[in-house]
């Protein structure tokens, strides 16, 4: 069974990425986590994402394409990255997710990946 682990981070946590004093600890924690997860063989795929200020939204309203800057303004915690992992059940997926640095200030959302659509 596959699960997507979505890492939601607070603005404060994301700011550490660029901070000269806090960046080493921030990246150190993530590198260790990613290394452990990949080492376990559970990872199907996954990526980190550039920060929310690089985000663009697009939607269609009354037939018109609307393009806007940034993530949705109501969003307090931002998607900072994701992994799709193979795990036998929710508890196994929870165990991988619980080790993630994002859990310390933000959170990890775990969602089962939709099974493939039947052919035909």
């Amino acid at each position, binding site marked *: *069974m596959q699960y997507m682990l979505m890492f939601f981070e607070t603005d404060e946590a994301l700011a550490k990425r660029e901070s000269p004093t806090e960046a080493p600890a921030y990246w150190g924690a993530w590198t260790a986590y990613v290394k452990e997860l990949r080492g376990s063989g559970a990872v199907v795929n996954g990526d980190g994402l550039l920060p929310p200020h690089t985000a663009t939204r697009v939607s269609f309203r009354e037939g018109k394409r609307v393009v806007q800057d940034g993530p949705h303004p109501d969003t307090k915690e931002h998607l900072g990255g994701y992994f799709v992992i193979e795990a036998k059940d*929710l*508890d*196994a997926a929870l165990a991988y997710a619980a080790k993630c640095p994002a859990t310390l200030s933000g959170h990890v959302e*775990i969602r089962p990946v939709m099974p493939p659509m039947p052919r035909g």
Partner: protein
Amino acid sequence: MDASHASPLVERVAREAYGRLVASLAVRFRDIHAAEDAVGDALRLALERWPTTGVPDEPIAWLSATAKNQLLQRARHDEVVARETSLHAITAALEERNERPVEELGDERLRLMFVCAHPAIDESVRTALMLQTVLGLDAEAIGRAFLVPGATMGQRLVRAKRKIRDAAIPFEAPEASELASRLHAVIEGIYAAFATDDASLVDEAMFLAELLATDLPEEPEALALLALVRFRHARRAASRDEGRFVPLAEQDTARWDRASILSAEDLLRTAASLRRPGPFQIEAAIQSAHCQRLFTGQTPWRAIVHLYGVLARLAPTTGSTIAEAVGRVEIGDLEGAALLLDGLGPQHVAAYAPYWLARAHLADRIGDATGRSSALERAIELTSDATLRAHLRERLART
């Protein structure tokens, strides 16, 4: 499960075995909803066939085998969209078609209750889910117990069952670190079933409480639950006199079950010796105090009020606040009782009969006859049990 037109036998078998049948199939196929449907189908088939074919020698085994066939047929029908996990389960089940159904039906109800108590299931629906899957209560009845409309409760239950299946919440026993928090929810579920006061549910709940205490003899709260239900059950016979309801204060202690009370005392002592206090140990201690009247002729109300205070700090609930208020009336602290009752939000108590009974009790002591009558009338409106209603009407007339 609609057993209203059932022959009495099907109804009895359903009552005895519904939870065990559902639990056994749900654990094996990891799909509670499908298991409930299959057991429902099997019961319907029994109603259709047994009157003409006669009752099979082993009705429960017949139901188990039929329900499993129903589940497999439906699964094959849905195979195109079936999830990998269920396919595994189906293959495994197909391979063991010719096995002995009864012995291996076993009792998976506790296991299923621990699944319902998983933290990934919304807390507000865990107990309800246990009542439905393990004890076969319908959403309407559960909704009444939780003061939620039946349709709303039904939706919540369906959502929870889908979540268990689709997110693959495991059916294995939780790890030790997880056990304590889930155990609390399981204990609450069993006690909620006991508190329904429905005779067959009470028996099932007592059986499950025994099962739990036997499985987990080192868990003080599991022992306390068994003590609690035994204390209360010991007074059950005395709460009726020729079909009439007898309130605790008027019960003849000679009709209390002494052996049951003593065994409950033993359990509570063992629980306390494990030195991990919890809300059910306090609840059991309160019932133990009520049962002291058998030995001393008196109810230690001060101790009871004190215990309710401890309970309020550990796990405050509307019910325990009301019970503490009643205790305060008994020790003459009418002001304290009024404060407690006034502090409860009207939206939580307006439709809760015990609240109005406590109000009536307090009004009676104050000498407020109008307040007493209107509170009693409200309580009568909110009481569905006929015996209890008759008792309250009698009390209302006794002004």
